């Protein structure tokens, strides 16, 4: 299944959006049913153990470059996510690992794979940011491949759900990003004035090494 779309964010810069999208916590919060999203080493992931540990590792999305820089996605790194989606009586737990394939400002892409309900799936997705007159356009795409029982028996059910999950994900990212921008506005951060804005951009560039 292929999905794509684009949304616009006003009064912000490509750097700010890039910063926000570098934050695993924002991604976790945007992904419907996502229990945790953490960096992992190569090798098998114990999802049950991680789920128990996740409750204690509560982190909030932020607009603070310092904080994000600490935990930002890195190219080549591997992350594990547990996603629980309810499809009527079907309650699959998607045990997913994702690798950041590329992160070159202002584009990034990731791919992953996982298992659920006697089935497996692969996904790839990417985003590209573009500066516009009023702000930033985020273009995104995602594709998923499903294998096994769900693909064979669950066609009628998975399509609307996959559609919902993917579309909801990007909608929520948009919402979160809009909130964050407001936050930085409210905190009189640096977007009011040209110079400050550039200052933030520079800080972001410095911090996360664009």
């Amino acid at each position: 299944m292929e999905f794509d779309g684009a949304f616009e964010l006003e009064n912000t810069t490509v750097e700010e959006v890039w910063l926000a999208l570098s934050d695993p916590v924002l991604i976790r919060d945007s992904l419907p049913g996502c229990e945790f999203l953490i960096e992992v080493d190569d090798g098998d992931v114990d999802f049950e153990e991680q789920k128990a540990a996740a409750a204690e590792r509560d982190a909030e999305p932020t607009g603070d470059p310092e904080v994000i820089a600490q935990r930002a996605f890195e190219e080549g790194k591997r992350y594990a996510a547990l996603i629980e989606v309810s499809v009527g009586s079907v309650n699959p737990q998607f045990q997913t690992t994702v690798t950041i394939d590329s992160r070159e400002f202002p584009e990034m892409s990731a791919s992953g794979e996982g298992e659920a309900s006697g089935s497996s799936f692969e996904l790839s997705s990417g985003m590209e940011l573009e500066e516009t007159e009023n702000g930033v356009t985020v273009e995104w795409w995602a594709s998923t491949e499903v294998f096994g029982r769900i693909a064979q028996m669950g066609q009628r059910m998975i399509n609307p759900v996959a559609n919902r999950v993917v579309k909801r994900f990007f909608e929520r990212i948009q919402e979160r990003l809009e909130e964050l921008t407001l936050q930085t506005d409210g905190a009189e951060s640096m977007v009011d004035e040209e110079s400050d804005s550039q200052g933030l951009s520079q800080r972001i560039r410095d911090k996360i090494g664009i």
Partner: protein
Amino acid sequence: MYPAPFEYERAESVEDALSLMDEHSDSITELLAGGHSLLPTMKAGLATPDVVIDIGEIDALRGIENAEGSITVGALTPYSAVDDSETVWTETAVFADAAHHIGDVQVRNRGTVGGNIAHADPASDLPAALLAADGTVIAHGPDGERSIAADEFFEASYMTALAEDELLTRIELPKRGGHAGAYAKKPSPSSGYAIVGVAVVLETDGNTVTDARVAVNGAMDHAVRLEPVEEALSGESFTDETITTAAERATDDLDTAMVMDDLQASNEFRAQLVEVYTERALDTALDRSSVAPPAAD
């Protein structure tokens, strides 16, 4: 295929069901009524509940009651009983018509109204009918009963306003004697589920449509109202021309990116079918209505 093992509990009453739900709230629990949504997914190995609570024997939840102002349909009432009910056909034809279009005879004998609505399959037939009929869902929870308007009930595919600890016990359908109602469905030739299904209810005063409720199944990830069609009908005289004009507006408010897109039909074709079947549902409603055709000029 074969269902995976599970623990089976049989509820004798609504209270019993609620307490069993509470008792097993830490497990993956499914309620079993007719089983026609649950068992196929269990047989396919897609659903593997730990506990199945069989509510099918709670007789209090079965039956159609002709109350004052509304028809009450118990959650365990099978589709066939709705289809066979003269009262439902008379008072809220759209709902009976939709029940008539579900699955096949065997499915209608076992599948239940409550199970269908609580399951909220985007391609099932009752949700749009419930919306068009302006029905109300009654849910029983630990704190008692509450009513949820159909417009508030369906949230997304398989997602409703029903809380996890609540049991859908009945629905109420306002009586609309003298109204015009119909359900028009394009079934999938394989599964029989709705590629699209359009439910319409029209109140008329003479030749004039005073109130219109139109909703669609299968098009979006849950049943939705087609408000532009309703607006185009309201206050107009009920004629073929009005119907055609109104049907053309069927997809005006639908987010095309979110229209369902699958093996059975692309989102573009679904959108086309929404128009075609809106017109057909309205045509049937017109045929069934007591509205006199406008005098020829």
